[in-house]
C-alpha cells in the first residue's frame, strides 16, 4: 500500500476548497448542453492536485526542520 498523507495536511487545503465551492455555489448557473463530459472532473482533479502539491512542499519543509533538529538531540 502506498503511504497515506497525514491528515493534518489535508485539513487546511480542504477547508480552502470548501470555501471556494461556497463561492461557486453562490454564483451557480445552468450546465451547458455541450459541456465536455470529462472537463469538470479533470479541472477538479487538477485543483485538488494543486493543493496536494502545496501539502507536498509543506511536508518537505517540516521534514527538513525535523532532520536539522535531529543531530543536535
Amino acid at each position, binding site marked *: 500500500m502506498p503511504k497515506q*498523507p497525514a491528515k493534518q495536511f489535508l485539513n487546511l487545503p480542504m477547508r480552502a476548497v470548501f470555501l471556494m465551492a461556497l463561492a461557486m455555489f453562490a454564483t451557480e448557473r445552468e450546465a451547458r448542453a455541450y459541456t465536455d*463530459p470529462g472537463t469538470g*472532473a*479533470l479541472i477538479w482533479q487538477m485543483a485538488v492536485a494543486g493543493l496536494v502539491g502545496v501539502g507536498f512542499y509543506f511536508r518537505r519543509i517540516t521534514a527538513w526542520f525535523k532532520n536539522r533538529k535531529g543531530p543536535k538531540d
Partner: protein
Amino acid sequence: MSQPAPPTQAITASFRDPAGSLFRYQGRVLRVVNAIGVADLEAFLASPAGRKSMAAGAVVPTRALDAAECRELLADISVRELYDARGGQMILEHEQVDFPSFPYEWNAEMLHAAALLTLDLAQALLADGLGLKDGTPYNILFRGPEPVFIDVLSFERRDPGDATWLPYAQFVRTFLLPLLANQAYGLGLDQTLTTRRDGLEPEEVYRWTKPWQRLRPPFFGLVAMPTWLGGKHKQDDTSIYRKKLLSDPEKARYILDHLLNGLRRTLQRLKPVAGTHSVWSDYMTTNNNYTADHFQAKQRFVGEALAEFRSRRVLDVGCNTGHFSAIAARSGAKVVALDYDPVVLGDVWRNARQEKLEILPLAVNVTRPSPGTGWRNLECASFLDRARGKFDAVLMLAVIHHMLVTERVPLADIIDLAAELTTNLLVIEFVAPDDSMFRRLTRGREELHQDLTPELFETLAGRHFEIVRMQYVEGTTRRLYLLRKRT
C-alpha cells in the same frame, strides 16, 4: 433514414481500442495488437507487477503467440483480413472466462469489487512506471464471484512527472456514480448502465441532488464540483487537456498516491452493506411456503439429481438467496445464479466469495433478459445468446408461477426456453394454481390459469424432455420434476 450496411467482416472484433482488437475464433479468445499497443504491452508483460497480477489471477492469464502459431492462424483468410485491417503486429491468446457478464447485470457489490481491483492494479503498477489508460468496468469480467481484469491493452508506460490520472473522470462516471446512485437513490445497475456505455455524468446526478446534498461528501467532489467547474469552463479552451509534466517525479507520485487513496476512501464509503432488505431478501427465512421436512426433501432431490448426472455447469433461474446454487457449487459445478432482485444477489455474492464457491450471481430477469448492447447490438451479446446450450443442468425452483402469473408467459414457452438453455437436465418445480403462493400472485384472476394442471405440464414437458422422476414437495400443490432432455 437509410439503413446501415450489413456487417461485411467475417469476424466480429472489438473496435474502440486504437491499440488492438479482441475476437473469438474457434472457441479461443484472441487479440490482435498493433504498433500503437505493442511497446506498452511488452512493458506490462515484462514488469514484476504485471507478472504478479497475472499469477494471482487479478489479470487474465495471457500469452503472446509465437511465429508458427501466428502463421497457422493467419492462414485463415478471415483472420488475415482482420489482422491486416487492424495493422496487427502480434496476436495474444487469453485464458477463457466461462461466462462473460456485463456491468448492467452485476449487483452493486460486484461493481464495488471491480472498482477495487481497478484501483489495486493502478497502484501496484505505479511502482513499475506503468498505469491504466482507462478506468471502466468493461475491463473486467467475473470468474465465479471473483473479478478479473481482461483488457491487457489498458496498461501503459507512465511519465514519472505526470501527476494526472487520466482515467479519473471515467472511473467516477462508470464506477463511483453508479454506486452512489445505488446507495443514495436505490437505482440498480441495470437502470443506470444498460443504456449508458460510459456511465453517469456528474451533471445528470446533479439534477437528482438536493441543494444541501451537494455540499456533502461524496456528492461534493463527485457531483457538485465537476458540474460547477465544467459549466464555467470556456469550451474552446483545450489547454486543460494538454499533458502537464512536473519536474519533480517525487511530487508527481505524491499527488497521484493522494488521488488514488482518496478514490479508495470514497469507494469505501460507497461500499454496499450486508443486511439490506428488499421484497425478496427474507424469502428463505420467513416468507416461503415450506415446512422444514419438505425443504430438506427438496434439497435432497436437487442434490441427488445433480450428483447422479454429474452436472458441471448449472444455471439457477430465480436463485433468491442462492441456497440451491450453493448446493450445486459444493458438488463441484460452476453456477450462474439469476435473480431480478440485486439486493438478494448481494448476499449470494458475499456468501459465494466467503465460501469460495464458483457462483456467478447476475441480476437478470429471465422473462426480460439483458439485450445485445452497443454498436449494432453486437458489442455485448444478449444474455440468451451467451446462455443457450452452455449449461448441462437448469434449475427452475419455485419460480414458474412468477413467470406464468406476473409476467404472463405461457407454460409451453417457459419449457421451450428451458430446453434451449440446458443440454441435459431440467430440475423444475411445478406450482399448481391452488397453491397459496400462486393465489397470492393471481390476486383474484384465478380463472386465467384454470387449465394449468400437472397433466398439461407433463404433456408440454414431454415435447423436449423425458421425466426421470417426480416428487411431491408441499402437499399436492407443488411437484418437483427431474427432466432429461431427449436426444
